[in-house]
Protein backbone atom coordinates (compact mmCIF):
# COMPACT_ATOMS: atom_id res chain seq x y z
CA UNK A 1 0.00 0.00 0.00
CA UNK A 2 2.86 2.40 0.85
CA UNK A 3 4.27 1.70 -2.55
CA UNK A 4 1.03 2.71 -4.26
CA UNK A 5 0.52 5.87 -2.25
CA UNK A 6 4.17 6.87 -2.53
CA UNK A 7 4.23 6.34 -6.25
CA UNK A 8 0.93 8.22 -6.64
CA UNK A 9 2.21 11.20 -4.70
CA UNK A 10 5.34 11.26 -6.84
CA UNK A 11 3.12 10.98 -9.90
CA UNK A 12 1.04 14.03 -9.03
CA UNK A 13 4.19 16.03 -8.38
CA UNK A 14 5.56 15.06 -11.78
CA UNK A 15 2.38 16.13 -13.51
CA UNK A 16 2.00 19.42 -11.72
CA UNK A 17 5.65 20.41 -12.05
CA UNK A 18 5.32 20.23 -15.82
CA UNK A 19 7.99 17.58 -16.10
CA UNK A 20 8.95 17.94 -19.77
CA UNK A 21 9.56 14.28 -20.56
CA UNK A 22 6.13 13.42 -19.21
CA UNK A 23 4.30 16.12 -21.10
CA UNK A 24 6.21 15.28 -24.29
CA UNK A 25 4.72 11.81 -24.04
CA UNK A 26 1.24 13.24 -23.51
CA UNK A 27 1.78 15.57 -26.44
CA UNK A 28 2.73 12.70 -28.75
CA UNK A 29 -0.40 10.77 -27.75
CA UNK A 30 -2.63 13.70 -28.60
CA UNK A 31 -0.77 14.64 -31.74
CA UNK A 32 -0.99 11.15 -33.19
CA UNK A 33 -4.59 10.45 -32.18
CA UNK A 34 -5.93 13.84 -33.23
CA UNK A 35 -4.34 13.50 -36.65
CA UNK A 36 -5.78 10.03 -37.05
CA UNK A 37 -9.31 11.02 -36.11
CA UNK A 38 -9.33 14.24 -38.16
CA UNK A 39 -8.09 12.43 -41.25
CA UNK A 40 -10.52 9.55 -40.89
CA UNK A 41 -13.73 11.28 -39.81
CA UNK A 42 -14.71 13.01 -43.08
CA UNK A 43 -14.20 9.90 -45.21
CA UNK A 44 -15.82 7.57 -42.68
CA UNK A 45 -18.87 9.79 -42.22
CA UNK A 46 -19.43 10.15 -45.96
CA UNK A 47 -19.23 6.38 -46.28
CA UNK A 48 -21.67 6.08 -43.39
CA UNK A 49 -24.03 8.39 -45.26
CA UNK A 50 -23.75 6.39 -48.47
CA UNK A 51 -24.41 3.18 -46.59
CA UNK A 52 -27.54 4.69 -45.08
CA UNK A 53 -28.91 6.37 -48.18
CA UNK A 54 -27.93 4.51 -51.28
CA UNK A 55 -28.89 1.05 -52.37
CA UNK A 56 -26.25 -1.21 -53.85
CA UNK A 57 -25.50 -4.88 -53.95
CA UNK A 58 -23.77 -6.07 -50.81
CA UNK A 59 -24.80 -3.08 -48.72
CA UNK A 60 -26.06 -5.16 -45.82
CA UNK A 61 -22.93 -7.29 -45.91
CA UNK A 62 -20.74 -4.21 -45.75
CA UNK A 63 -22.65 -2.84 -42.75
CA UNK A 64 -22.26 -6.15 -40.96
CA UNK A 65 -18.55 -6.16 -41.80
CA UNK A 66 -18.02 -2.76 -40.20
CA UNK A 67 -19.89 -3.81 -37.09
CA UNK A 68 -17.67 -6.87 -36.81
CA UNK A 69 -14.50 -4.82 -37.22
CA UNK A 70 -15.52 -2.78 -34.17
CA UNK A 71 -14.08 -5.43 -31.92
CA UNK A 72 -10.89 -5.96 -33.92
CA UNK A 73 -7.97 -6.14 -31.47
CA UNK A 74 -5.48 -3.32 -31.79
CA UNK A 75 -2.60 -5.75 -31.61
CA UNK A 76 -3.76 -7.56 -34.76
CA UNK A 77 -3.99 -4.30 -36.66
CA UNK A 78 -0.52 -3.46 -35.35
CA UNK A 79 0.95 -6.78 -36.42
CA UNK A 80 -0.56 -6.58 -39.90
CA UNK A 81 0.71 -3.06 -40.41
CA UNK A 82 4.13 -4.06 -39.08
CA UNK A 83 4.40 -6.84 -41.63
CA UNK A 84 3.39 -4.47 -44.41
CA UNK A 85 5.86 -1.75 -43.40
CA UNK A 86 8.77 -3.97 -42.42
CA UNK A 87 11.89 -3.91 -44.60
CA UNK A 88 11.06 -7.37 -45.82
CA UNK A 89 7.46 -6.37 -46.49
CA UNK A 90 5.77 -4.83 -49.54
CA UNK A 91 6.01 -1.24 -48.32
CA UNK A 92 9.38 -1.47 -46.62
CA UNK A 93 10.94 1.03 -48.99
CA UNK A 94 8.76 3.77 -47.57
CA UNK A 95 10.73 3.51 -44.29
CA UNK A 96 7.63 4.25 -42.29
CA UNK A 97 8.17 1.72 -39.54
CA UNK A 98 8.80 3.18 -36.09
CA UNK A 99 7.60 6.62 -37.06
CA UNK A 100 4.63 8.66 -35.92
CA UNK A 101 3.19 8.32 -39.41
CA UNK A 102 2.94 4.57 -38.95
CA UNK A 103 1.15 5.10 -35.65
CA UNK A 104 -1.29 7.50 -37.28
CA UNK A 105 -2.02 5.00 -40.05
CA UNK A 106 -2.63 2.25 -37.52
CA UNK A 107 -4.97 4.40 -35.48
CA UNK A 108 -6.84 5.47 -38.60
CA UNK A 109 -7.57 1.83 -39.29
CA UNK A 110 -8.68 1.35 -35.70
CA UNK A 111 -11.13 4.23 -35.49
CA UNK A 112 -12.56 3.83 -39.01
CA UNK A 113 -15.09 1.06 -38.19
CA UNK A 114 -16.36 2.91 -35.12
CA UNK A 115 -16.92 6.09 -37.09
CA UNK A 116 -18.71 4.27 -39.88
CA UNK A 117 -20.86 2.08 -37.64
CA UNK A 118 -21.91 4.81 -35.21
CA UNK A 119 -22.17 7.42 -37.95
CA UNK A 120 -24.41 5.09 -39.91
CA UNK A 121 -26.64 4.56 -36.89
CA UNK A 122 -26.97 8.29 -36.31
CA UNK A 123 -27.72 9.07 -39.95
CA UNK A 124 -30.19 6.24 -40.25
CA UNK A 125 -32.07 7.62 -37.29
CA UNK A 126 -32.39 10.96 -39.04
CA UNK A 127 -35.77 12.11 -40.20
CA UNK A 128 -36.23 11.11 -43.84
CA UNK A 129 -37.97 14.38 -44.50
CA UNK A 130 -34.78 16.32 -43.80
CA UNK A 131 -33.17 15.04 -47.00
CA UNK A 132 -36.30 15.59 -49.09
CA UNK A 133 -36.74 19.10 -47.74
CA UNK A 134 -33.17 20.04 -48.57
CA UNK A 135 -33.48 18.69 -52.11
CA UNK A 136 -36.83 20.31 -52.80
CA UNK A 137 -35.43 23.64 -51.64
CA UNK A 138 -32.79 23.38 -54.33
CA UNK A 139 -29.80 21.79 -52.61
CA UNK A 140 -27.55 19.53 -54.67
CA UNK A 141 -27.09 16.01 -53.22
CA UNK A 142 -23.70 16.87 -51.69
CA UNK A 143 -25.13 19.94 -49.99
CA UNK A 144 -28.18 17.99 -48.84
CA UNK A 145 -25.86 15.41 -47.30
CA UNK A 146 -24.08 18.11 -45.30
CA UNK A 147 -27.42 19.53 -44.19
CA UNK A 148 -28.56 16.10 -43.04
CA UNK A 149 -25.33 15.62 -41.13
CA UNK A 150 -25.87 18.95 -39.44
CA UNK A 151 -29.29 17.78 -38.34
CA UNK A 152 -27.80 14.73 -36.65
CA UNK A 153 -24.61 16.45 -35.57
CA UNK A 154 -24.85 15.35 -31.94
CA UNK A 155 -24.87 11.71 -32.94
CA UNK A 156 -21.95 12.27 -35.30
CA UNK A 157 -19.87 14.09 -32.70
CA UNK A 158 -20.60 11.25 -30.31
CA UNK A 159 -19.22 8.86 -32.92
CA UNK A 160 -16.05 10.94 -33.23
CA UNK A 161 -15.61 11.06 -29.48
CA UNK A 162 -16.08 7.31 -29.22
CA UNK A 163 -13.54 6.75 -31.98
CA UNK A 164 -11.05 9.08 -30.31
CA UNK A 165 -11.56 7.36 -26.98
CA UNK A 166 -10.60 4.06 -28.53
CA UNK A 167 -7.42 5.20 -30.21
CA UNK A 168 -6.01 7.41 -27.47
CA UNK A 169 -6.12 4.45 -25.11
CA UNK A 170 -4.86 1.70 -27.39
CA UNK A 171 -1.41 0.24 -26.92
CA UNK A 172 -1.17 -2.86 -29.11
CA UNK A 173 -0.90 -1.01 -32.38
CA UNK A 174 1.23 1.92 -31.21
CA UNK A 175 3.74 -0.42 -29.64
CA UNK A 176 4.11 -2.66 -32.68
CA UNK A 177 4.50 -0.01 -35.35
CA UNK A 178 5.78 2.86 -33.23
CA UNK A 179 8.48 1.13 -31.22
CA UNK A 180 8.17 3.32 -28.12
CA UNK A 181 11.10 5.51 -29.16
CA UNK A 182 11.68 8.29 -26.66
CA UNK A 183 10.55 11.72 -27.90
CA UNK A 184 9.36 10.24 -31.16
CA UNK A 185 6.91 7.40 -30.85
CA UNK A 186 6.57 6.99 -27.10
CA UNK A 187 3.00 7.85 -26.23
CA UNK A 188 1.05 7.50 -23.01
CA UNK A 189 0.07 3.88 -23.45
CA UNK A 190 3.39 2.53 -24.69
CA UNK A 191 5.15 4.43 -21.94
CA UNK A 192 2.91 2.92 -19.28
CA UNK A 193 3.44 -0.51 -20.77
CA UNK A 194 7.20 -0.21 -20.78
CA UNK A 195 8.15 2.47 -18.29
CA UNK A 196 7.31 0.03 -15.56
CA UNK A 197 9.99 -2.33 -16.81
CA UNK A 198 12.44 0.21 -15.49
CA UNK A 199 10.79 -0.11 -12.13
CA UNK A 200 9.71 3.52 -12.34
CA UNK A 201 6.13 3.17 -11.28
CA UNK A 202 5.58 6.84 -10.51
CA UNK A 203 5.82 7.74 -14.18
CA UNK A 204 3.47 4.92 -15.04
CA UNK A 205 0.89 6.08 -12.54
CA UNK A 206 1.22 9.70 -13.60
CA UNK A 207 0.51 8.79 -17.19
CA UNK A 208 -2.31 6.54 -16.13
CA UNK A 209 -3.86 9.48 -14.29
CA UNK A 210 -3.74 11.61 -17.43
CA UNK A 211 -5.55 8.88 -19.35
CA UNK A 212 -8.09 8.43 -16.60
CA UNK A 213 -8.95 12.12 -16.46
CA UNK A 214 -9.21 12.18 -20.24
CA UNK A 215 -11.50 9.16 -20.27
CA UNK A 216 -13.73 10.82 -17.67
CA UNK A 217 -13.96 14.02 -19.71
CA UNK A 218 -14.73 12.14 -22.92
CA UNK A 219 -17.44 10.08 -21.32
CA UNK A 220 -18.94 13.15 -19.71
CA UNK A 221 -19.04 14.88 -23.07
CA UNK A 222 -20.63 11.80 -24.64
CA UNK A 223 -23.29 11.77 -21.96
CA UNK A 224 -24.14 15.41 -22.53
CA UNK A 225 -24.31 14.97 -26.27
CA UNK A 226 -26.54 11.95 -26.13
CA UNK A 227 -28.94 13.89 -23.97
CA UNK A 228 -28.95 16.77 -26.42
CA UNK A 229 -29.37 14.45 -29.36
CA UNK A 230 -32.49 12.99 -27.82
CA UNK A 231 -33.92 16.40 -27.07
CA UNK A 232 -33.58 17.54 -30.62
CA UNK A 233 -35.13 14.54 -32.32
Amino acid at each position, binding site marked *: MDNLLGASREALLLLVSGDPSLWTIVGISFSVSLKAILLTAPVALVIAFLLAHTRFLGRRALITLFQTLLAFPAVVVGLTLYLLLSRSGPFGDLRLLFTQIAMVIGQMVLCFPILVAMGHAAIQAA*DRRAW*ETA*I*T*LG*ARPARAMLTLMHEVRFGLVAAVIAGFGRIIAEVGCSLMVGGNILNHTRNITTAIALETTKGQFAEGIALGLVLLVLALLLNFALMLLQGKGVM*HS
Partner: protein
Amino acid sequence: MKPEPILQFRGLRKFLANRWLLDISELSISAGQCMILSGDNGVGKTTLLKIMAGLEPPDAGEVSYDGKVLPLRTAPQQYRDNIVYLHQSPYLFDCSVIDNVAYGLRRRRMPRAAVQAKVAEVLEWAGLEHLGKRNAKYLSGGEKQRVALARARVLAPKVLLLDEPIASMDYKSRERTYVLIERLKKEGMSVVITSHELSAVLPLADVHMYLRDGKLHDERQDNTAAQMSWLISSENRHND
Protein backbone atom coordinates in the same frame (compact mmCIF):
# COMPACT_ATOMS: atom_id res chain seq x y z
CA MET B 1 -58.09 28.64 -74.43
CA LYS B 2 -56.36 26.71 -71.69
CA PRO B 3 -53.11 28.28 -70.45
CA GLU B 4 -49.89 26.53 -71.42
CA PRO B 5 -49.10 23.70 -68.93
CA ILE B 6 -45.91 24.06 -66.92
CA LEU B 7 -45.60 20.44 -65.94
CA GLN B 8 -47.15 17.60 -67.85
CA PHE B 9 -47.13 13.85 -67.33
CA ARG B 10 -48.36 11.29 -69.85
CA GLY B 11 -48.68 7.62 -69.15
CA LEU B 12 -47.30 8.10 -65.67
CA ARG B 13 -46.83 4.83 -63.87
CA LYS B 14 -45.35 3.92 -60.51
CA PHE B 15 -44.88 0.39 -59.32
CA LEU B 16 -45.09 -0.51 -55.62
CA ALA B 17 -44.78 -3.94 -54.00
CA ASN B 18 -46.56 -6.07 -56.57
CA ARG B 19 -48.97 -3.74 -58.32
CA TRP B 20 -49.15 -0.49 -60.18
CA LEU B 21 -49.75 2.16 -57.54
CA LEU B 22 -50.20 4.88 -60.11
CA ASP B 23 -51.38 4.54 -63.68
CA ILE B 24 -52.26 8.01 -64.89
CA SER B 25 -52.82 8.70 -68.56
CA GLU B 26 -52.54 12.45 -68.33
CA LEU B 27 -51.77 15.04 -65.69
CA SER B 28 -50.89 18.66 -66.25
CA ILE B 29 -50.46 21.75 -64.14
CA SER B 30 -50.91 25.16 -65.69
CA ALA B 31 -49.66 28.52 -64.51
CA GLY B 32 -51.69 30.08 -61.75
CA GLN B 33 -53.84 27.00 -61.41
CA CYS B 34 -54.93 25.58 -58.06
CA MET B 35 -55.57 21.84 -58.11
CA ILE B 36 -57.10 19.88 -55.27
CA LEU B 37 -56.17 16.22 -55.15
CA SER B 38 -58.38 14.01 -53.03
CA GLY B 39 -58.61 10.31 -52.35
CA ASP B 40 -58.60 7.74 -49.59
CA ASN B 41 -55.67 7.30 -47.25
CA GLY B 42 -52.84 5.26 -48.67
CA VAL B 43 -54.11 5.54 -52.24
CA GLY B 44 -50.85 7.19 -53.38
CA LYS B 45 -51.46 10.94 -53.16
CA THR B 46 -48.16 11.59 -51.40
CA THR B 47 -46.24 9.45 -53.87
CA LEU B 48 -47.83 11.30 -56.75
CA LEU B 49 -46.90 14.64 -55.23
CA LYS B 50 -43.33 13.51 -54.66
CA ILE B 51 -43.06 12.43 -58.28
CA MET B 52 -44.40 15.80 -59.33
CA ALA B 53 -41.82 17.43 -57.07
CA GLY B 54 -39.02 15.47 -58.65
CA LEU B 55 -38.21 13.76 -55.36
CA GLU B 56 -39.06 10.35 -56.74
CA PRO B 57 -38.71 9.12 -60.29
CA PRO B 58 -41.69 7.56 -62.10
CA ASP B 59 -41.22 4.03 -63.39
CA ALA B 60 -42.69 4.80 -66.79
CA GLY B 61 -44.18 7.68 -68.70
CA GLU B 62 -43.31 10.91 -70.42
CA VAL B 63 -42.45 14.09 -68.55
CA SER B 64 -42.64 17.53 -70.11
CA TYR B 65 -41.51 20.70 -68.41
CA ASP B 66 -42.23 24.04 -70.02
CA GLY B 67 -43.26 22.22 -73.19
CA LYS B 68 -39.99 20.29 -73.46
CA VAL B 69 -39.98 16.54 -73.13
CA LEU B 70 -37.34 15.35 -70.67
CA PRO B 71 -35.56 11.97 -70.53
CA LEU B 72 -37.10 9.94 -67.75
CA ARG B 73 -34.01 9.16 -65.68
CA THR B 74 -32.54 12.64 -65.46
CA ALA B 75 -35.86 14.51 -65.55
CA PRO B 76 -36.28 14.95 -61.79
CA GLN B 77 -33.02 16.91 -61.40
CA GLN B 78 -34.01 19.16 -64.26
CA TYR B 79 -37.45 20.27 -63.25
CA ARG B 80 -37.35 20.22 -59.48
CA ASP B 81 -35.56 23.54 -59.20
CA ASN B 82 -38.80 25.36 -59.84
CA ILE B 83 -41.07 23.19 -57.76
CA VAL B 84 -41.22 23.04 -53.99
CA TYR B 85 -42.87 20.26 -51.99
CA LEU B 86 -44.09 20.64 -48.42
CA HIS B 87 -44.51 17.55 -46.25
CA GLN B 88 -47.70 16.98 -44.34
CA SER B 89 -45.90 18.01 -41.17
CA PRO B 90 -43.22 20.21 -42.64
CA TYR B 91 -39.65 19.53 -41.58
CA LEU B 92 -37.80 22.55 -40.29
CA PHE B 93 -34.02 22.47 -39.87
CA ASP B 94 -32.41 22.66 -36.45
CA CYS B 95 -31.58 26.38 -36.63
CA SER B 96 -33.33 29.74 -36.44
CA VAL B 97 -36.42 30.67 -38.44
CA ILE B 98 -34.35 33.14 -40.44
CA ASP B 99 -31.77 30.46 -41.32
CA ASN B 100 -34.54 28.09 -42.32
CA VAL B 101 -36.17 30.60 -44.62
CA ALA B 102 -32.81 31.63 -46.09
CA TYR B 103 -31.78 28.01 -46.80
CA GLY B 104 -32.81 27.84 -50.45
CA LEU B 105 -31.58 31.39 -51.16
CA ARG B 106 -28.14 30.68 -49.80
CA ARG B 107 -27.80 27.73 -52.15
CA ARG B 108 -28.24 30.21 -55.00
CA ARG B 109 -25.20 32.23 -53.96
CA MET B 110 -26.95 35.55 -53.58
CA PRO B 111 -25.17 38.41 -51.83
CA ARG B 112 -25.83 38.50 -48.10
CA ALA B 113 -27.65 41.78 -48.10
CA ALA B 114 -30.06 40.60 -50.78
CA VAL B 115 -30.74 37.41 -48.86
CA GLN B 116 -31.43 39.33 -45.66
CA ALA B 117 -33.83 41.67 -47.44
CA LYS B 118 -35.81 38.90 -49.08
CA VAL B 119 -36.05 36.94 -45.85
CA ALA B 120 -37.28 39.98 -43.94
CA GLU B 121 -39.88 40.65 -46.62
CA VAL B 122 -41.27 37.13 -46.62
CA LEU B 123 -41.37 36.94 -42.82
CA GLU B 124 -43.54 40.05 -42.85
CA TRP B 125 -45.71 38.51 -45.53
CA ALA B 126 -46.28 35.46 -43.34
CA GLY B 127 -46.73 37.41 -40.12
CA LEU B 128 -43.63 35.86 -38.56
CA GLU B 129 -41.34 38.89 -38.06
CA HIS B 130 -41.32 38.43 -34.30
CA LEU B 131 -40.08 34.84 -34.53
CA GLY B 132 -36.99 35.43 -36.66
CA LYS B 133 -34.27 34.45 -34.22
CA ARG B 134 -36.10 31.58 -32.54
CA ASN B 135 -35.03 27.99 -33.15
CA ALA B 136 -37.53 26.54 -35.56
CA LYS B 137 -37.78 23.24 -33.68
CA TYR B 138 -39.59 24.86 -30.80
CA LEU B 139 -42.47 26.42 -32.72
CA SER B 140 -46.08 25.30 -32.68
CA GLY B 141 -47.52 23.24 -35.53
CA GLY B 142 -49.25 26.21 -37.09
CA GLU B 143 -46.16 28.42 -36.85
CA LYS B 144 -44.06 25.69 -38.44
CA GLN B 145 -46.48 25.44 -41.33
CA ARG B 146 -46.24 29.17 -41.99
CA VAL B 147 -42.43 29.12 -41.77
CA ALA B 148 -42.45 26.31 -44.34
CA LEU B 149 -44.70 28.31 -46.64
CA ALA B 150 -42.48 31.36 -46.26
CA ARG B 151 -39.40 29.24 -46.89
CA ALA B 152 -40.94 27.99 -50.14
CA ARG B 153 -42.35 31.32 -51.28
CA VAL B 154 -39.04 33.15 -50.92
CA LEU B 155 -37.68 30.94 -53.71
CA ALA B 156 -40.50 32.06 -56.08
CA PRO B 157 -41.17 28.58 -57.46
CA LYS B 158 -43.57 28.04 -60.35
CA VAL B 159 -45.38 25.23 -58.60
CA LEU B 160 -46.03 24.60 -54.92
CA LEU B 161 -47.11 21.15 -53.76
CA LEU B 162 -48.83 21.04 -50.36
CA ASP B 163 -49.41 17.66 -48.75
CA GLU B 164 -52.37 17.91 -46.35
CA PRO B 165 -51.52 21.48 -45.34
CA ILE B 166 -54.27 21.92 -42.80
CA ALA B 167 -54.60 18.45 -41.36
CA SER B 168 -54.68 18.31 -37.55
CA MET B 169 -54.61 22.07 -37.10
CA ASP B 170 -56.67 24.13 -34.78
CA TYR B 171 -59.16 26.57 -36.28
CA LYS B 172 -57.02 29.69 -35.90
CA SER B 173 -53.92 28.15 -37.53
CA ARG B 174 -56.08 26.72 -40.25
CA GLU B 175 -57.44 30.16 -41.05
CA ARG B 176 -54.02 31.78 -41.16
CA THR B 177 -52.69 29.05 -43.44
CA TYR B 178 -55.69 29.37 -45.72
CA VAL B 179 -55.11 33.11 -46.02
CA LEU B 180 -51.47 32.54 -47.01
CA ILE B 181 -52.40 29.96 -49.65
CA GLU B 182 -54.96 32.39 -51.04
CA ARG B 183 -52.31 35.08 -51.29
CA LEU B 184 -49.99 32.68 -53.09
CA LYS B 185 -52.72 31.98 -55.57
CA LYS B 186 -53.26 35.69 -56.15
CA GLU B 187 -49.53 36.11 -56.72
CA GLY B 188 -49.84 33.71 -59.64
CA MET B 189 -48.30 30.57 -58.18
CA SER B 190 -49.61 27.17 -59.21
CA VAL B 191 -50.61 25.17 -56.19
CA VAL B 192 -51.49 21.51 -55.84
CA ILE B 193 -53.11 20.58 -52.55
CA THR B 194 -54.00 17.17 -51.21
CA SER B 195 -56.59 17.11 -48.52
CA HIS B 196 -59.24 14.89 -47.15
CA GLU B 197 -61.05 17.77 -45.52
CA LEU B 198 -62.44 19.02 -48.79
CA SER B 199 -64.87 21.59 -47.53
CA ALA B 200 -62.05 23.69 -46.07
CA VAL B 201 -59.99 23.95 -49.27
CA LEU B 202 -62.52 23.52 -52.05
CA PRO B 203 -63.19 27.26 -52.45
CA LEU B 204 -59.58 27.69 -53.57
CA ALA B 205 -59.77 25.09 -56.29
CA ASP B 206 -59.76 25.64 -60.02
CA VAL B 207 -59.51 21.90 -60.60
CA HIS B 208 -60.52 19.00 -58.38
CA MET B 209 -59.09 15.55 -59.15
CA TYR B 210 -59.46 12.41 -57.16
CA LEU B 211 -57.21 9.39 -57.16
CA ARG B 212 -58.71 5.91 -57.11
CA ASP B 213 -57.18 2.54 -58.03
CA GLY B 214 -54.18 4.34 -59.43
CA LYS B 215 -56.20 6.45 -61.82
CA LEU B 216 -57.02 10.14 -61.73
CA HIS B 217 -60.56 11.25 -62.23
CA ASP B 218 -61.82 14.78 -62.76
CA GLU B 219 -64.32 15.27 -59.95
CA ARG B 220 -66.25 18.13 -61.53
CA GLN B 221 -66.57 16.43 -64.88
CA ASP B 222 -67.82 13.28 -63.18
CA ASN B 223 -70.21 15.28 -61.08
CA THR B 224 -71.42 17.21 -64.10
CA ALA B 225 -71.90 13.97 -66.00
CA ALA B 226 -73.79 12.50 -63.05
CA GLN B 227 -75.97 15.57 -62.84
CA MET B 228 -76.55 15.50 -66.57
CA SER B 229 -77.54 11.86 -66.55
CA TRP B 230 -79.88 12.47 -63.59
CA LEU B 231 -81.44 15.39 -65.43
CA ILE B 232 -81.93 13.34 -68.57
CA SER B 233 -83.40 10.38 -66.71
CA SER B 234 -85.74 12.63 -64.71
CA GLU B 235 -86.81 14.39 -67.90
CA ASN B 236 -87.51 11.03 -69.41
CA ARG B 237 -89.60 10.12 -66.41
CA HIS B 238 -91.52 13.32 -66.85
CA ASN B 239 -92.22 12.48 -70.42
CA ASP B 240 -93.50 9.01 -69.59
